[in-house]
């Protein structure tokens, strides 16, 4: 019988860091069926451990005139208790493609800063992006554990190898289905 390497401790302090765009881009679910419920996702990932804080990192752009819509969405997250870190950072590349800048580094900085200040014992990074690997290693050097959560299609092998535990989101019931009347 294999032994689990880490003991689960209810007193473990957990902080959650969500790369919102990365999560949405990797998400291939039928949007008509349901919408992703970040509150539920966070609750399931944290389990019965102590949640210290949950951050959502997102980019914004006035180019799309979606500021108001995004602001409303961000405020909804804030009402649920999330700390939303939104940056005006979506830029148009030469090939015409819009990309999000700064957000990954902002997330990495936040993860590192809280680790150095001993604000948590376990960081849960909801993104399978390989760019976070150096940050994960640094946080582990500070004596913290890092868990990564992502959809199977977006979870990089490097992240999987370097984190202390990983969660495949495909299997978690985190899509909130809507009532029939609400849909109609």
């Amino acid at each position, binding site marked *: 019988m294999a032994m689990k390497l880490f003991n689960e401790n209810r007193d473990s302090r957990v902080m959650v860091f969500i790369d919102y765009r990365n999560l949405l881009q990797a998400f291939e*679910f039928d949007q008509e069926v*349901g919408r992703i419920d970040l509150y539920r996702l966070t609750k399931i990932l944290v389990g019965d451990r102590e949640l210290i804080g949950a951050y959502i990192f997102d980019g914004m752009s006035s180019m799309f005139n979606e500021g108001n819509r995004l602001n409303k969405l961000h405020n909804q997250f804030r009402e649920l208790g999330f700390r939303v870190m939104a940056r005006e950072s979506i830029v148009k590349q030469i090939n015409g493609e819009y990309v999000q800048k700064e957000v990954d580094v902002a997330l990495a900085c936040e993860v590192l800063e809280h680790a150095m200040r001993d604000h948590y014992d376990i960081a849960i990074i909801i993104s399978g992006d390989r760019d976070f690997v150096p940050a994960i290693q640094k946080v582990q050097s500070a004596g913290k554990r890092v868990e990564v959560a992502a959809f199977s299609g977006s979870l990089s092998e490097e992240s999987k190898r370097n984190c202390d535990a990983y969660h495949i989101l495909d299997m978690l019931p985190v899509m909130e289905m809507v009532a029939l009347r609400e849909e109609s």
Partner: protein
Amino acid sequence: MDFNDFVRENMAKYGSPDDGEISSEKKYVDMLTFNRNPKKDGVMSHYKAKPTFINPWDYEGEEVLPGDTYICSLSPTYDGTSYYATPIKKVDMSVIMATSQEFIKVAMDKIWENHKDQIMDRFRDRYLDEVTKNVAEGLEEKHRDEIDAKEQENESLRAEIHRLRSQADAREWNPEMTAESGATAGFHRLTSDEIVLSSDEAADEEPDEPVVETTVEEAPQAVAEPEFPPIREHPSSLEMKYPVFEYRSLGEVQRPEYDNPMVRVQSPVRYRVSIFSNSITCDSFINDARYFVHVSPDKRNLLIRPNEYGTVTCVNHTISVAGLDRLYSKKEGQMSVEYTGEYNPNLEGMLIKL
């Protein structure tokens, strides 16, 4: 010996700033401690309850600072309301240590007499600390056996708390307990007749998902120390943490490795659920209760979770949800598909594996 006499006799030894002698005209000799003059610059003291100032015409020595103590010669002012003091010798530790025991005693008596309040203020806390410490040490020594006994009792109580917590944790794994919590959380608890056990007709009705008979280990009569359930071997860290996501057939015995006679293992409580195109029906749904309905992105897990803020309201044991027909495939002409739901304490709801 009076202090004045003592000082007069010994003054020649100490000397004075001017001539080293005390004039016979000077009537008084005393030891004074000077403080800051609150009304103007300089220092002052009190002699016989009257304000006493440094005699500016008769003293040219070292500056007298607040807090300094001097042996002084004293003469009354012309109106008799105050005194002039001429410092003769500063009294510090070197002076006190160099003098005789008799002088120390006399000096200390004089200091006590003149400055009792100040001394008491300064030394009260230190004295009380010292006394308290001594008393505490004495009491601790006296009651050592009693303290040891109490500490031992404290240790045993801690052990008892630890044991009870362990017992409570072990009980969380007992499906019987989770079934009860499920009932109170928004699901009607099924009777023994209603429960679909793998050993009865459910197995025949669901040939695609063979149900293995559940093994029930009876707990021994003797009370024993509970143990934590052992950790199962599993390839995925997620599945280690959330054993619900174990893609075995529903009928399989849960946690078969927990073959531990100390922990009673029984089959989880299951519910029979009918899923239509836009609704889910289950006898265990409570009318007017509110539910959240969640599905996993891979469309293989459907979770129905009772919650007062739920988005779906149960009517006639049925909840209406959009898009259910996209989650599973049904044969043509088929109105609904039967599933078996299982209460999952980790997810706080009924989990249906589609």
